[in-house]
């Protein structure tokens, strides 16, 4: 129980840190304690405006930290899965089309931008999506 309580406290502190990072305009923030406790927030360097960190995985017990690439929608439209339908766990051997966003009758492909493994699919097939909406999390390692 004590461990759980301490984990909850930790989660609150991480959330506060994440909020501060989003506000800060920093591109990368890494904090470490000793050899095996570390946390890192990162965002795409090209984005001028503050936005949600790409992904942050906290490793409190020395497990290797994992950073996931997030693929966002870059226009407003209806997002549809490409075939074969992308799903969590799917390994991508190379760059491939994962989905498309249809806007004003024009279909714009959403690509994986390289190999990796889909960690999560963040929208429903046929759902409306907005600019900047996260669509996929990809593990590049």
């Amino acid at each position, binding site marked *: 129980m004590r461990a759980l309580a301490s984990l909850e406290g930790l989660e609150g502190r991480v959330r506060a840190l994440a909020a501060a990072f989003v506000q800060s305009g920093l591109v990368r923030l890494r904090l470490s304690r000793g050899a095996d406790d570390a946390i890192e927030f990162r965002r795409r360097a090209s984005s001028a*405006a*503050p936005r949600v960190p790409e992904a942050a995985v906290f490793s409190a017990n020395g497990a290797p930290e994992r950073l996931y690439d997030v693929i966002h929608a870059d226009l*407003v439209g*209806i997002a549809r899965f490409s075939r074969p339908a992308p799903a969590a766990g799917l390994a991508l051997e190379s760059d491939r089309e994962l989905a498309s966003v249809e*806007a*004003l009758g024009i279909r714009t492909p959403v690509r994986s931008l390289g190999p990796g493994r889909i960690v999560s699919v963040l929208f429903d097939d046929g759902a409306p999506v*907005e*600019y*900047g909406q996260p669509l996929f999390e990809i593990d590049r390692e």
Partner: protein
Amino acid sequence: MLKKVLIANRGEIALRINRACRELGIATVAIFSEPDRPSMWVKQADQAFCVGPGPVARSYLNIPNIISTALITGADAVHPGYGFLAENARFAEICADHGLTFIGPQPRVIAAMGDKATAKRVMKEAGVPITPGTDILENAEAAAAAAKKLGYPVLLKATAGGGGKGMREVRAPEALEAAFVTAQAEAEANFKDGRMYMEKLIERPRHIEVQILGDSFGNVVHLGERDCSVQKPSHQKLIEESPAPALSDRIRKSLHTMAVRACQAVGYVNAGTLEFLVSGNDVYFMEMNTRIQVEHPVTEMVYGIDLIKEQIRIASGESLGYAQNDLKPAGHAIECRINAENAENNFAPAAGTLTGVVFPGGPGIRVDTYVSTGTAIPPFYDSMLAKIVAFAATRDAAIARMERALRETSIEGVNTTVGVCLEILADKRFRAGSYAIDFLPQLMRAGVS
């Protein structure tokens, strides 16, 4: 009646349109840029979509993403507000091409009024006096001949001009050649277009504009005038009032009549404003704004009419349902624009996070704003935070009420125009109602305490 309106704007006007839709039982779709995500109009709308990053060209002017948002949400109309796409005839056409009702006038009228030369020709044909002037001037000699004919002082202007660039006041013949050459070089450098023309300089004019409403059945009414002569050195308005003070009944009536006649002549539909320069007994048409204006609330207070609802009703195909004689103005309204600006540094815009925000209330006070404590003001947009409107039976009572309201107002974290508005209200020229558009620049030069 329309069922769902996409609000293609941000800030207080997005919230204002949302309020009108709510009261009419119409669903709303807000748009926003990434930094605007936590904003009040985003929270108040039924649906909200991010259409791009902070810079306006990629968000609030991003026509494909805005139209796509309207289509995927099933909106049947688009309200453009003011600024951004409000006077973009092509956008109005694109809306129509996608089966969306554009809440504003017809694209051909927007295009005609957006072109200075066409607008003046149309107005002249409708019998509205325009500033005496010339066509394109070939060279300094042609300018000298034209100036002699018009009579000094004259104003040299670049056809592509804006923000005072390529513009020169010339008060005597010996100064003309140098002014022509430098203004033309400035226009070429700034706009890659050195075409120049000339107008008679109107000395110390007042900026008085007339609000009109027209429906698709040919009915046009005016809703009185607004005096917008309190302008920053950049010609942006700071304080507006209705009715205009110290204006003879003859001129007031003639402005109203001309505005209605001009709108009937062009078959104008929806809300619009004709801006005039008034100098003594002379009246000149300046331009027509084919949209709702920032300062529309002063007219609403005096006429008891919700102009945004009227825009929506007209766009839905309804007739006005009232005639000019049914409209009875009462009382006096004044609006102060509260901007995040440093008045002591030529109204330079200020970005930052607002703290300790308190807006006024009580009898006769209306506040149109989208900000509260904690609102971050991004650097990308207009600096206006709020419009405070005071309404009372008389002008003196409205001024007293506005002073009281401004003293109740507190905004920390950025510089604002609250202080300079109080200075203006206290000035004896403003009190007398005898101010012209040089009033605020003069006051600033004299040094606001």
